[in-house]
């Protein structure tokens, strides 16, 4: 079955390439744009996902420094944004793209979505986040998908907090975990990939069988899982364990109706269950203003921009020694070695893995 899926995947990549080539034909130029020179000017349009945010003052400083005005074009969640960008590659909806993550990266690179650009500061980014060997795109931030737990539940039930993926299949944690469907949800997919990384292609189905036997609950969307089913979310549901991000605890403090006085979140993260996600930025092929796009990507690695990221997008900066806000230092320990799979492996096998998952969990 996996053979068949791989063939389908190859077919699909070819067809996507054909499709985009045909589209590029309608556009003004081919995907290899001349290297721009001179100082940036005009307007840069950043294509990004719905979760993007940045402080007023930070953006104003960029315009003051470079004379370039920034326009933001949010075009859906991360997967939708990337697919939409590939589809419109011949006549892109902007100059730079931010928010493509390591799971989607090879789809973007294979279809020639970007023109190569590497800012000089990129050499300082730790190796862990350098997941694009071709250096076409630049890592900007990272956040991990981890199991979150409701502290109150475990204290009041006198129950030890689970630590590892294995723990989640133990009888004392029966009917406590809610996850997302990997075929409909990005964090759901990332968590399934964590189990593939841990138990291997051939073993992860067994793990999910044990989770199923232990009463795992599946939701199609993150918001229903976190806001309705999770006992630590706003809906105060029945499940004290949920798949979410390692930055969800600080986010729940910042966006609380009545923030806790000590600034400590009522939820925590199981750091041994995390799947690493790095978000990248790149200059779009056929960009109208590639020079300004490069300038903006340079700016994304400055201390000012990096330090603004945590409270705006609830992610960790990739540049070392960037100060973190107190709500982060108090509430998150970023996992040192999250599970990660090579992007090409994910792109090749994702459909087959999701199919295996579906056969195991939903039948």
């Amino acid at each position: 079955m996996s053979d068949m899926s791989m063939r389908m995947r190859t077919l699909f990549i070819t067809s996507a390439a054909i499709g985009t080539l045909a589209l590029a034909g309608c556009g003004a130029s081919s995907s290899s744009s001349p290297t721009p020179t001179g100082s940036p000017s005009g307007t840069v349009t950043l294509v990004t996902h719905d979760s993007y945010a940045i402080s007023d003052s930070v953006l104003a400083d960029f315009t003051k420094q470079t004379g370039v005005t920034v326009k933001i074009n949010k075009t859906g969640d991360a997967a939708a944004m990337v697919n939409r960008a590939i589809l419109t590659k011949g006549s892109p909806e902007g100059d730079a793209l931010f928010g493509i993550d390591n799971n989607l990266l090879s789809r973007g690179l294979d279809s020639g979505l970007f023109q190569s650009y590497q800012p000089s500061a990129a050499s300082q980014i730790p190796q862990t986040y350098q997941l694009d060997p071709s250096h076409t795109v630049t890592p900007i931030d990272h956040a991990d998908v981890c199991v979150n737990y409701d502290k109150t539940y475990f204290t009041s039930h006198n129950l030890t907090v689970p630590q590892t993926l294995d723990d989640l299949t133990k009888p004392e944690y029966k009917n406590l975990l809610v996850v997302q469907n990997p075929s409909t949800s990005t964090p759901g997919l990332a968590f399934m990939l964590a189990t593939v990384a841990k138990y291997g292609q051939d073993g992860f189905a067994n793990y999910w069988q044990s989770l199923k036997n232990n009463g795992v609950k599946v939701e199609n969307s993150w918001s229903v899982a976190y806001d309705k089913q999770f006992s630590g979310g706003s809906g105060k549901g029945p499940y004290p364990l949920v798949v979410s991000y390692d930055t969800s605890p600080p986010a729940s403090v910042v966006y609380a109706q009545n923030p806790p006085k000590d600034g400590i979140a009522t939820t925590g993260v199981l750091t041994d269950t995390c799947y690493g996600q790095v978000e990248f930025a790149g200059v779009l092929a056929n960009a109208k203003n590639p020079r300004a796009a490069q300038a903006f990507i340079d700016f994304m690695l400055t201390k000012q921009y990096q330090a603004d990221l945590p409270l705006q997008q609830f992610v960790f900066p990739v540049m070392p020694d960037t100060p973190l806000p107190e709500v982060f230092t108090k509430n998150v320990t970023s996992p040192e070695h999250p599970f990660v799979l090579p992007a090409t492996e994910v792109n090749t096998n994702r459909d087959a893995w999701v199919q295996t998952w579906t056969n195991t969990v939903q039948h």
Partner: protein
Amino acid sequence: MDQHRPALVRSATFAIPIAFFALFFLYPLVTILLTALGSTANLKQAWAGLTAPVMGDVLWFSVWQAVASTALVMLVAVPGAWVLARFRFPGRSLIEALSVVAFVMPTVVVAAAVTALLGPTGPLRWLVGSHADHGIGAILLAHVYFETAIVLRMVSTYWAQLDTRLEQAAATLGASPWRIFRSVTLPRLRPVLLASASIVFLFTFTSFGIILLLGGPGQVNLEVEIQQQVLFLFNLPTGAALSIVQIIVVVLLLLVSSRLSGRLTPERSQVATPRRPHTTRQHIAVGGFIVGGLALLLLPPLMVVLQAFNTGDGWGWTNFQSLSTSHQGSVLFVPPGQAIGNSLIYACTATVIAIVIGGLVAVGITRTSIRPAVEGVWLLPLGVSAVTLGFGILIAFDSGALAWRGSFWMVPIAQALVAIPFVTRALVPALRAVSPSLRAAAACLGASPLQVFRLIDLPLIWRALVMSAAFAFAISLGEFGATVFVANSDRPTIPVAIYRLLSTPGTANQGQAMALAAILMAMTAAVVLLTERFRLPEQRHV
């Protein structure tokens, strides 16, 4: 009728809508289908996707949940339509307004409300048993809540215009009420029952947000599958092939329903005005309708309002007050308050477009001997997946003379595509009811077609026109699917803002989302209640 210049009238009234439809619907649709399927490799991939074993389950689930939803909606709405058609009672316009509010609520909000009702701590948990806090029960409840309005409105308007003397005659001859309903009323209602049931089927068959948010494992319909293929997996060929399957199902349905139902023209000879209930039985019917209708239509909004005023440690206006402020001084976070303004501007523009185009279609249909099947064509946009059309618009209007992709106008145009069929459906019966002899007389006296329309038709259809404008306004206010693909991200509408807020953790975001939803409901209800004022004087004259 119009013996003088029928060809001219026909071409003038149809040319504009056809051009509009071809440019903004057919052209992007064909563009995306050709892009996705325009090579042998793509066709092979589409075939592989289409014949995957899971697709059988998807098609089966799409059909059976839509059939079940439609049956339930008809079961709930038809008795309600009878009460609305025949009786006058306190709270009547409130229930009508609430039902339209239901029709235009964003799916994310209804899903949230239904989960709150049926969820682990919900008051209606007993309805679905201990395990099914979501799944098919929740989907059916949400669909009944959404679609009851359209059936209530279509059927009750039609029913009110049926001649009651036939029923009276049958009663005099000794037929039981059930017998009268079955052999006298039902056959005459058949056209409107089929027409409204097919619209409900259309909506529930292509339902997206409700299925995605409330559906459990394995509960995936075609529309959700298309969006997953296109947006999540970037399998455009399979997405396009599934879109074609969906279009075929929808076209077949429309053909069958229009063939069976014939023309939607009530006989309208002696119309009975709604009156107060007399007999005990009638009192029970009306009372049951008020209680049942309020329970169905009031509970979900009530959950929203409760959450909107819940401040975490009590009750108050905090969620509403915080709508005008943006978190953390973030420039890209559009204050939800601004979304209200965007929604109003878009909805007004979309209403004007829908009235002009839908009105022209209605005039064209009534003045020419077009077969009923053609009326169904205008319903097609409802059956086409929003993501398919949205991506089509993205690549069809990307360059050259048609580089309108990011323009303001694309949003109201996309919304109008959804609203046009409703405007047409509301106006056609009204126009048909205008006596042709009046028009003929005016034409004989030398009036131009435009003058005939202005002096004869317009005054007579004024009420239907206002009602359909309100409906179009409400539809575009709540429209989410097309808007999310076409809208410029710096001009989000209320449903888009609600969706964004619900996708972020934190009780404050949840509270703001519910506050915005409450505002959307209040706006819709206000519009509908306002138009009720146009209703009463006219009814007295009839």
